[in-house]
């Protein structure tokens, strides 16, 4: 058990190390001088530009040897210092990111969780029903294959423009300031609904299909046949199959939750929803390397944490893994 986890932790550390290295390489891979590139994109006044140039040259540490730059980068990370954004100069990258994260959570946590629950229920329900298998399931395949941004665009166009029911841009009305007032809440929810719904629908398809395929395998397992032989009602057989089919789905859920931080890039872009995905696009378009680096660091940490949690959860929910660790 100990051995198992220490090995896992080792892999995670290794991955983190690699990811950070790639992260560090991003601006340095750029042809030319990253600071120059960055500033030429950001159209700012020349005296401000000088201040920024001085700051970034120092921040990137381009005047010290590469290995020193690399070590400095690690040091900065451990101090929680991710530099200053160009695009939102002179704000700290960490602040910019922390401002975006709540929107991601608000959008993705409900859409992931609800679609997971609904999709699994539906998939289990549809499995081994010839009628549903031939009517509704093909639609879920289509949903799973639908590009996020396309569904988002379709909904924005139909529900937003043609019927004008929902606003299609931003997280709340431009005329408002975030507050805990009722009016703000209504505005927030109205802006939230379309991105949420488009994410929910596509993911619903994926979960439903995954569950349907898994449960069919489980229903053909020996333990299911044994229960049937002993006259157990369909509901019990299905309950067991469902529970076992859920195990891989839990992995999927954790992986997906890990990507919550990454946001739903395409969806946020369509709706100009100010989460990390949208932020990342702005950063890319403005060649704001510190912001890009910061976003990626957050994404990687999220993914790694989620993976680690799966490993722990799995040991708890599936006795088979526990046995494997102790040897037979």
């Amino acid at each position, binding site marked *: 058990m100990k051995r198992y986890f220490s090995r896992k932790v080792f*892999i995670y550390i*290794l*991955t983190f190390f*690699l*990811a950070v290295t*790639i*992260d560090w*390489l*991003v601006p340095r*891979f*750029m*042809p030319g001088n990253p600071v120059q590139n960055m500033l030429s994109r950001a159209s700012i006044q020349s005296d401000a530009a000088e201040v920024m140039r001085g700051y970034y040259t120092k921040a990137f540490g381009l005047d010290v040897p590469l290995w020193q730059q690399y070590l400095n980068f690690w040091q900065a990370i451990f101090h929680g210092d991710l530099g200053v954004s160009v695009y939102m100069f002179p704000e700290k990258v960490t602040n910019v990111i922390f401002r975006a994260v709540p929107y991601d959570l608000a959008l993705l946590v409900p859409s992931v969780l609800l679609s997971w629950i609904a999709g699994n229920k539906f998939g289990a329900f549809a499995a*081994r029903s*010839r009628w549903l*298998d*031939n009517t509704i399931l*093909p639609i879920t*395949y*289509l*949903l*799973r*294959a*639908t*590009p*996020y*941004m*396309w*569904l988002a*665009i*379709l909904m*924005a*166009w139909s529900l*937003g*423009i*043609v019927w004008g029911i929902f606003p*299609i841009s931003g997280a709340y009305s431009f005329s408002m300031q975030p507050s805990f007032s009722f009016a703000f809440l209504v505005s927030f929810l109205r802006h939230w609904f379309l991105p949420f719904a488009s994410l929910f629908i596509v993911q619903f398809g994926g979960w439903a*299909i995954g569950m349907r*395929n898994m449960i*069919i*395998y489980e229903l*053909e397992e020996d333990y299911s046949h044994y229960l049937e032989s002993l006259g157990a009602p369909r509901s019990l057989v299905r309950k067991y199959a469902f529970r076992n089919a859920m195990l891989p789905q839990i992995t999927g859920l954790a992986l997906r939750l890990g990507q919550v931080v*990454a946001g739903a*890039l*395409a969806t946020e*872009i*369509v709706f100009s929803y100010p989460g990390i995905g949208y932020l*990342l*696009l702005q950063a*890319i*378009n403005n060649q704001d390397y510190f912001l*890009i680096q910061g976003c*990626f660091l957050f*994404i*990687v940490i999220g*993914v*790694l944490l989620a*993976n680690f949690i799966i490993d722990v959860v799995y040991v708890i929910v599936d006795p088979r893994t526990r046995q494997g660790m102790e040897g037979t």
Partner: protein
Amino acid sequence: MEPPQSKEKNEFFYFALRNNKLVIGLIVVFFFLVFAIIGPFLTEHDLNERAGPRNQPPSAEYWFGTTTFGQDVFTQFVYGLRAAFIVGLVGGGLATIVGMMVGFFAGYHGGMVDELLNMLTNTVITIPKLAVLLVIAAYLTVRGVIHESIVIGLWSWPWAARAVRSQTFSLKSRNFIDMARMTGMSSMKIIWTEIAPNMMSYLFMTFVLQFGGAVLAAATLDFIGLGPTEGISLGLMMQHSFNWSAIQLGIWWWFVPPGAALALLVGAMYLMNVGLDEVFNPKLRER
């Protein structure tokens, strides 16, 4: 007691042709493939040429209408479809091949080789594809569909590798591998002549999934601006329409066809995959 099993080819076709999922999936994919191949010959317009008036809805002359720049949407669509197939074939193919290699070697050799390859697989799974693409996008200022496909392929193999590895692992314990070893065959030869042929159906299914995944990944990359800088793709069409406010202007013919084609094509691929699974695995067949 089991009924006698027969693995003859005609049995495969018997079930294949009676599997609605497989048949429908194949028809849809085939339809798009034909469209992608002959489509460009049906249009007299060039990709970016100003073919006619701006923002024309579909008509007899402009089947899918025109863009804000007066480009013919149908022309872009058929070329975009071509690009989608290229990404699927190259990206999905590459992912399958790399995944296959890694899976074969990890599964067959086990031990240290397995540990190391596993570590590599896990690492690649965790590092976001976007990060790598960003580096590459920054590096290659001129990018084509092929570049994009290669990057996608090189970053999507881990799932295939995991699947192939576990299959190889179970095949390895069968006696026919021992029989081959007892002729002094090299492990390479055993992998290629004994293990791989047994997994053809599985590899093909893996490829079908990877194809779909690569097409969707490419569409997302194109949409956020990390796609090809030259040519057209279905993702780029959506990006352009979005950037030029097609939503607000109601130019639906610009963004509906590319997304619909993607959903149908990839959905058909997934459907095909499940159909194939049912054909190869009698337990899953409809009852």
